[in-house]
């Protein structure tokens, strides 16, 4: 040990310099001792975080080549079928970075896949939080931050999808313009202000660009910091189990165990996205062709996280409201404005609704098993199935083709299932939860039945010891912690 207090010479140099300025040793030790519960479902949020990192890494690369301009030019690049066509600079630069920039296609495909993985991980993470009741006091605020992050992720997915100005994304923008127009009173103004005039206009691409690469990512980064900060401040939730109580957290320490595991997860997420980008083609815009307002592609498919809105627009009846000299296109407004509005409002409100109607405003750090809260689980499962059916409805034409049946039949099946399925699923879920909670020993590991033959030839059966994981009351070991308190 030398004068700095460190035994290790290297620490005495660099770390002590930092310590004198930041009190690094004190803070550092506390951080390293933070406990992370070991449960697979806790990795979902991490996957979202890591896909965001991949998004930033690949996205910065794309900005070096992409030109956010709707200026029409004649394409002279290397892709022969497009030679001589009038395309926007945005489109030409995206084709160019995909086909002519070395490694560009991989970066672009990884970026697109990462966005899909990002939103998917967020949604599954949200389900985990919901079904285990992790949103209860004191974590309501973090739940709200999480929902905002979901909205931002979807928004940025949409804006990014629109940037290449290809035939499919341009159609998506056209639909978005009509959706804005469907808002009563202010819709037309809103649409003109956002697009800088009537659709398509020349301003929307540069505007989407700055929103996509700067405004939303910066808000996401800030909120992510808040999300994680609150998580550290509140400490993790955990499932109940051996030695796990409301007043403690049981798991592995941040350093080194969690850091190693989560680094592994980061690498795996990165690898997964890289594999998708390498082997599964996504959004080959050079095949779609440039956006022309009077052209349409046969296969208009949005990214998966927009599918529920597309499906809702398809199965909505054509109820345009007219009166008092005004038009309110409810056939667009209800599925594309009211439905997402209601969805996210309910998501924001859920923790408070549940606390209010469930009369439970207490602090909770132990997670629920979904079956133990049959009503919540039933509502959640029913709602989830509603969105899954809507998602399915975004493929009415594909399904009609596939099953060689009429569009009408497919449409009406969806109109009916979208009502029936959620109710049925909710009911079934409720029943199953009840059943499970009433079955003794359910959810516990089975104990082996051991048969023993005695020397006399008789047989004897008895149940083996319970698995160590299920032993009740086994207390986890306290984390090794600060020396001065050890002496106390």
């Amino acid at each position, binding site marked *: 040990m030398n004068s700095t207090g460190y035994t290790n010479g290297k620490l005495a140099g660099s770390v002590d310099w930092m310590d004198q300025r930041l009190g690094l040793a004190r803070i550092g030790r506390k951080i390293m001792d933070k406990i992370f519960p*070991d449960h697979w479902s806790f990795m979902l949020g991490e996957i979202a975080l890591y896909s965001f990192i991949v998004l930033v890494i690949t996205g910065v690369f794309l900005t070096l080549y992409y030109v956010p301009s709707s200026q029409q030019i004649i394409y002279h690049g290397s892709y022969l079928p497009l030679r001589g066509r009038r395309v926007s600079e945005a489109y030409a630069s995206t084709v160019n970075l995909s086909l002519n920039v070395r490694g560009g296609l991989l970066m672009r495909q990884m970026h697109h896949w990462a966005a899909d993985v990002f939103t998917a991980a967020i949604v599954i993470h949200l389900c985990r939080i919901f079904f285990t009741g992790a949103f209860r006091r004191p974590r309501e605020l973090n739940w709200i931050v999480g929902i905002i992050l979901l909205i931002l992720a979807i928004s940025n997915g949409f804006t990014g999808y629109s940037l290449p100005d290809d035939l499919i994304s341009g159609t998506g923008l056209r639909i978005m*313009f*009509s959706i804005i127009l469907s808002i009563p009173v202010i819709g037309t103004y809103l649409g003109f202000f956002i697009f*800088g005039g009537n659709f398509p206009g020349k301003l929307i691409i540069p505007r989407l660009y700055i929103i996509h690469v700067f405004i939303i990512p910066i808000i996401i980064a800030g909120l992510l910091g808040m999300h994680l900060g609150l998580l550290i401040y509140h400490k993790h939730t955990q499932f109940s189990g051996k030695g796990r109580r409301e007043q403690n957290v049981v798991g592995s320490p941040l350093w080194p*165990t969690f850091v190693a595991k989560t680094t592994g997860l980061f690498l795996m997420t990165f690898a997964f996205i890289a594999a998708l980008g390498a082997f599964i083609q996504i959004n080959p815009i050079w095949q779609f062709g440039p956006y022309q307002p*009077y052209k349409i592609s046969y296969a*208009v498919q949005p990214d998966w996280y927009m599918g529920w809105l597309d499906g809702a627009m398809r199965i909505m009846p054509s109820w345009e409201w007219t009166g008092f000299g005004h038009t309110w296109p409810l056939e667009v407004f209800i599925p594309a404005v009211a439905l997402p509005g209601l969805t996210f409002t309910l998501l924001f409100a859920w923790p408070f609704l549940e606390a209010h109607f469930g009369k439970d405003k207490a602090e909770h750090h132990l997670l629920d098993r979904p079956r133990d809260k049959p009503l919540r689980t039933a509502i959640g499962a029913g709602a989830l199935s509603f969105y899954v059916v809507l998602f399915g409805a975004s493929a009415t034409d594909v399904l009609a083709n596939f099953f060689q049946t009429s*569009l009408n039949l497919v449409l009406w099946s969806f109109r009916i299932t979208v009502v029936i399925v959620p109710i049925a699923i909710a009911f079934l879920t409720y029943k199953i939860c009840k059943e499970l909670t009433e079955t003794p020993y359910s959810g516990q590991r089975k104990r082996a039945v051991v048969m023993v033959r005695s020397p006399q030839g008789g047989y004897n059966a008895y149940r083996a010891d319970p698995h160590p994981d299920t032993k009740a009351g086994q207390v986890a070991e306290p984390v090794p912690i600060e020396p001065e308190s050890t002496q106390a």
Partner: protein
Amino acid sequence: MDTKENGENINAVSKAGNLSAGNNSHNLANHTCEGCGRSDLAEQERRRLRALEVVAQLSVIGALLCFIGVGVTYWVGGQNQFLGGFLAAGLALLGIGVIVIGKYFMPQGPFVEQRHEISSTVQQKQLFEEALVERGGSAFKRRKFLGVLMGASATMFGITFAFPWIRSLGPLPGKTLFQTWWRPGSRVVTVHGRPVKVDDLEVGGILTVFPEGHAGSSMSQTILIRAASLPITTRKGRETWSPHGYLGFSKICTHAGCPVGLYEEQSQQLLCPCHQSIFDVLDGAVPVFGPAPRPLPQLPLGVDEEGYLRARSDFLEPVGPGFWERTTA
């Protein structure tokens, strides 16, 4: 729960020496293996760890090779599947190495940490209130008028500074959505600007057309269908609109504005691929299926002496999807 002020209330017992692996190795076999000696178990454990170490080493070596593969692939041209494949394999192998280390060679605990109280004590709350209200508010309490003035000017700043943020964003809609570039007498041209003559389309043929001088215009796009060789009346009052069986409809779907691009010649229906609205061409393009609420507006067509198709007027109603200012016809 202890409530030391700085929140350093995590339990404290040193366990530094006890960082062995193998907490996950409990299983039924260990319990039933009565005959096995202790040293055998330790030996097994040692061998298992050794094997895991080899796995980690191999995968990290594999990762190294893959990353070299990334470099080589890039150098020889950056073929997408190889580049991404090597990258993915390298990252995954490195990930396996790191996870093996984290799972088997690092302290697994389980460790425990105590939570801290989140809510403040009554005294803390009082101190907070005192600072916020007494210390901060007293300056304003006696100067209500100044406070009001400040509030007013800050509000004015907020409002006027918002002007450019909102009003400058785009032009007012005005009549933009009510009209297109079609004028009485506009010649019908293709997207390349070539005027369309009356014998250009076979019966059953379709063509996307625009008013002359505005080829490619989004609002004015019109779908020209030759449904027959004789004039067709689709609706009352449109007797003269379809010379030689030519029908012109706005190509903008009345649902959400996609171009209504698919024509089914047999059923004489137009299909919008976005949400599958179907319009009946021979019946004034009324929607017969799907979410579209209104017929596609029909363009009154005529033929001049030279045989060129011309519009008799603009569409008689706003084209495209509904919007608030659209008056009920």
